[in-house]
């Protein structure tokens, strides 16, 4: 399998551990990722608010590049980028006039629809599930987690067509297959405050607090995420939240690719667990030793 790869800005900075662990997991599963050259920021939360055309043109520039480079389906790991890509394609698909305008802006005519997929969709396929089972079945046993999908993977459901809009389960399934006890909870698609991370941190702290509290209530040892903004708000801001609310969570926040990688024998330097604010290594070491570079 081969995909065009759009890491997006976060995976080159705040979420490098998501990038590294995803690449390592894909290598292990023989999935080839070809990074789109010359990709630009999808505009995420800012551009659609400022200009209709720009909000559509920026993500589609990357699909145009993928088409020019003959890359086929594009893998988009950041939930915010994923949603932006899907929304942009949805818009031009339904509005031929807009499509013409955007193609003029991009100086590119799309030949066909280019698939946009999230790693959870790729890794939840039956063939990959078989691979995962043979490489790491049961290796996460002893780990009690909740899966947090956030807002933008599953919404709006008619546009992203990801799993289920209100009750997605692909991450739960995957981690359960590897032996983790995946707990049910009510916050899987709630919003963490996302793009207000730099501006209205009061709102981010309140919304993220509710999510951390929800995880603690059901007895989870950690939260598993699939979005760099969710990770930032729940991990890097956890100390501030604890201070504000007078509680102690100390809940590690994993990218699902880190747990997957750990379960299937990806060496620890590719998981970059040391980059987290709440140290997630101790909990994993309780489950079993981290794979050292010499293992592979």
């Amino acid at each position, binding site marked *: 399998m081969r995909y065009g790869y759009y890491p997006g800005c976060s995976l080159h900075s705040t979420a490098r551990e998501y990038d590294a662990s995803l690449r390592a997991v894909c290598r292990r599963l023989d999935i080839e990722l070809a990074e789109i050259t010359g990709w630009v920021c999808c505009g995420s939360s800012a551009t659609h608010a400022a200009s209709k055309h720009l909000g559509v*043109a920026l993500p589609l520039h990357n699909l145009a590049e993928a088409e020019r480079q003959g890359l086929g389906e594009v893998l988009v790991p950041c939930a915010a980028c994923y949603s932006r890509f899907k929304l942009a394609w949805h818009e031009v698909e339904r509005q031929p006039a807009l499509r013409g305008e955007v193609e003029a*802006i991009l100086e590119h005519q799309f030949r066909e629809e280019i698939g946009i997929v999230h790693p959870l969709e790729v890794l939840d396929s039956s063939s990959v599930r078989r691979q995962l089972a043979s490489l790491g079945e049961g290796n996460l046993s002893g780990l009690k987690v909740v899966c947090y999908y956030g807002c933008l993977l599953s919404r709006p459901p008619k546009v992203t067509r990801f799993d289920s809009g209100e009750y997605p389960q692909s991450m739960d399934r995957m981690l359960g297959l590897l032996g983790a006890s995946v707990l049910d909870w009510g916050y899987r698609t709630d919003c963490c405050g996302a793009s207000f991370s730099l*501006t209205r941190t009061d709102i981010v702290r309140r919304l993220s607090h509710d999510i951390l509290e929800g995880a603690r209530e059901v007895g989870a040892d950690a939260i598993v995420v699939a979005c760099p903004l969710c990770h930032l708000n729940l991990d890097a801001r956890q100390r501030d939240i604890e201070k504000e609310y007078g509680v102690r969570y100390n809940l590690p926040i994993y990218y699902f690719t880190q747990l997957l990688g750990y379960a299937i024998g990806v060496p620890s330097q590719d998981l970059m667990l040391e*980059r987290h604010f709440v140290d997630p290594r101790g909990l994993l070491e309780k489950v079993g030793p981290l794979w050292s570079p010499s293992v592979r």
Partner: protein
Amino acid sequence: MSWQISSTSVSQFADQLAEASGVDINVCYQCKKCASGCPIAYAVDYTPVQLLHAARLGLKDLVLSSKAIWLCLACETCVARCPQEVDIVKVMDALRAMALQAGVKPQVPEVASFYRASLRNIRVFGRMYELGLIGQLKLATRELDKDVRLGLEMFKKRKLKMLPDFASLGKASGIFSRARKLERR
């Protein structure tokens, strides 16, 4: 005398909004599902359902000078749940643009500054340069001491890059200028 009942033309403002956003808000039947699921309902002056109602009544000033249009997180919960398929996020996008065009001062200025700074950042660098964005935002909001400790820790963990990603430097500027030109027409 005959009356023509149509779902459109409830107010001139609702028509303008439909034109700008492509969304007909007149189909809203005020079920409040949007407000019930809105994560920032606690922080806004008007919930989505109230804002839609006000817009239908043509209360342009109230709507454009609301905090709600700037506090919307675009989490799409309301869009996913609306039984009438009113795309409220698109409505919010259009309302912010209308407010800026009409010269209404943004009621949550730091969010407006964030949008401006992000756009400039992407136009220049092609990709987000976080440190540059944070710097611009600090200058705009004058909150120089905000999150300094967190920023330093992120820097130490190399979650923030010292220098921008040069691979796409200037790659977005053409897209920006062609989009602007088209929208000014």
